[in-house]
């Protein structure tokens, strides 16, 4: 789960990481009220989960009330790389002596956590990594040992930070690591991490990704969400406990198991079709779950045909067939369906479909034939 900048900063602040004071606002009036409280100059920052918002006009400094009105008015509702800005963050402006970069990444390849520090902050860190990889100091931390003082010293010396902030930077990294572990984050990135003219260290930006599987241990984080990042079909699917990802095409896809569904998308694309979605009905889906999934798929009006590709293990094919029959009884779909059932109770499932004799439902024997048939029908 990705957090907005200000949600990330508030999370860091709870763990003692200094951040500039600020307030979120969803209207111009709220933005002005926030600015009046915080004081001038202040910064109006678009809250969207995408990089490069500053260059696209999503971050503006305001010297007074009128400028806050102007900038908040422009930024709220702005489209940044396809995302609509619903919220701004009004923040006290900071004076900046140096811009550093710090991050902690869940490194699945190394099976440990990677901590990085660089004095080349405030810019695209991937470009720095390409052009000047030595400018980024990095080390892995053993998850059983945790972040030690020497880790912080080593990173600070290796990155070549100013001598007077060697120890404070180490302390800051320790706090970021504590946040990462205690909140069960998969990513914490602070870019820039600034040194002010008074030699204070502050997180001026924050990119935080939390582990969705761990949210049950962090109920306060589970409530954070970003409406601008969510597609209506994806919200609907999430509420129904389905794994759904919206894609650009017109062929609705339902399968069981993430790997098989991904493979189905590929085979449909190879047959010349364009999948409208990824939908994993999961293991052991009952009829109601299938009916519910059909509703989600068909709520995307671009869909002109639907493919069911089921290989039953835990999932029983007769339950899938019952779900489809129920969907026809309740929502009466008008697009053609292609159904391929194999695995547990496949014969029973096919018999149920044959008896029901649903209009425009085509049963096929193999995944490849199913893909070809649905592409033909969707055209």
């Amino acid at each position: 789960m990705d957090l907005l900048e200000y949600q990330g900063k508030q999370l860091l602040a709870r763990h003692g990481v200094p951040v500039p004071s600020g307030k979120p606002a969803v209207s111009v009036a709220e933005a002005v009220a926030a600015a009046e409280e915080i004081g001038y100059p202040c910064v109006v920052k678009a809250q969207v989960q995408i990089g490069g918002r500053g260059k696209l006009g999503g971050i503006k400094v305001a010297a007074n009330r009128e400028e806050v009105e102007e900038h908040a008015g422009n930024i709220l509702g702005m489209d940044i790389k396809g995302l609509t800005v619903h919220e701004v963050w009004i923040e006290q402006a900071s004076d900046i002596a140096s811009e550093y970069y710090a991050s902690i990444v869940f490194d699945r390849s190394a099976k440990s956590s990677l901590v990085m520090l660089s004095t080349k902050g405030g810019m695209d860190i991937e470009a720095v990594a390409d052009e000047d990889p030595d400018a980024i100091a990095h080390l892995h931390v053993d998850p059983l040992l945790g972040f030690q003082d020497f880790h912080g010293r080593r990173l600070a010396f290796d990155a070549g930070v100013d001598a007077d902030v060697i120890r404070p930077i180490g302390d800051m990294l320790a706090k970021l690591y504590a946040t990462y572990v205690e909140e069960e984050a998969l990513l914490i990135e602070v870019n820039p991490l600034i040194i002010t003219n008074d030699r204070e260290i502050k997180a001026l930006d924050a990119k935080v990704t939390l582990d969705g599987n761990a949210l049950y241990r962090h109920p306060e984080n589970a409530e954070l969400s970003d409406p601008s990042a969510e597609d209506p079909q994806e919200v609907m699917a999430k509420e129904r406990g389905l794994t759904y990802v919206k894609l650009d095409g017109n062929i609705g896809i339902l399968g069981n198991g993430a790997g098989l569904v991904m493979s189905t998308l590929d085979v449909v694309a190879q047959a010349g079709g364009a999948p409208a979605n990824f939908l994993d009905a999961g293991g052991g889906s009952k009829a109601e779950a299938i009916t519910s999934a059909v509703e989600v798929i068909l709520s995307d009006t671009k869909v002109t045909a639907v493919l069911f590709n089921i290989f039953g293990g835990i999932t029983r094919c007769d339950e899938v067939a019952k779900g489809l029959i129920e969907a026809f009884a309740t929502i009466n779909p008008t697009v053609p369906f292609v159904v391929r059932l194999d695995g547990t109770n496949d014969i029973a499932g096919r018999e149920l479909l044959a008896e029901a004799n649903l209009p425009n439902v085509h049963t096929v024997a193999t995944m490849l034939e199913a893909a070809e048939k649905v592409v033909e029908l969707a055209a």
Partner: protein
Amino acid sequence: MSVLVGKDTKLVVSGITGREGTFHTLNNRSYGTNVVAGVTPGKGGQDVEGIPVFDTLHKAVDETGANTAMIFVPPRFAADAILEAEDAGIELIIAITEGIPAHDELRVFNHIKSKGTSRLIGPNCPGILSPGKANVGIIPASFFREGQVGVVSRSGTLTYQIGNELAQRGFGNSSIVGIGGDPVPGSNFIDILELFEADDQTELIVMSGEIGGDAEEQAAEYIKEHVTKPVIGYIAGFTAPPGKQMGHAGAIVSGSKGTAVAKAEALEACGVRVGRTPTEVANIAADILGA
């Protein structure tokens, strides 16, 4: 032979009294797996259709000599159950549970690795089937028969699809190993490739990967250096858009890394033939084994 599970397996099931745990334990037993015990804290002394239930894994191991554990408890208790099995001296731990927090997986992985006495398969995996010998997990065994193709896969249902395509061409399996779709799998492709390379029964290896991470790329390098048997690759997720998580926590493409194209190219560069569909995988197998 076969790998990991077989006639020597003595299985203890952690979470045996749950609905799914009971169902699959009994399925595994009726396939012929030697299920010796179950564990559910507070239900020691009961039995599940004749399988004795113990309060702790240590007690189950002491009483029955179990050497393999299947973890079927809910995600919030699963890391603890895996560590308990490791502490009780279990050699092979197969974790079916899906949705374990990533930091739990990280601690579990590093602890097991540092101790070096247990092997963990999964979590979030369908288990291991050695046709004709033993089934531990949720793989629908009736679709597979004994044969010479070893299969290792990150996905469950996709494994069934590929296995079924192979079966239709007349090929059976030595073992089918699901390593799971999570970011920190206890065992990776390389661990299982090493076992298949050493296994007499296995003549051909099918490796089924998916987008995300770099496990397939690492496996490609390993195959080039260490595997003499023919390997066929398959990668799911050619049409997956970057930045979107496709169901498996591990299946997410970030930037240019972890794409299906990059993985297929890495495998092909190391001499692995890659099928673009499950059907094509079976066709290549027929080509190699001459059927």
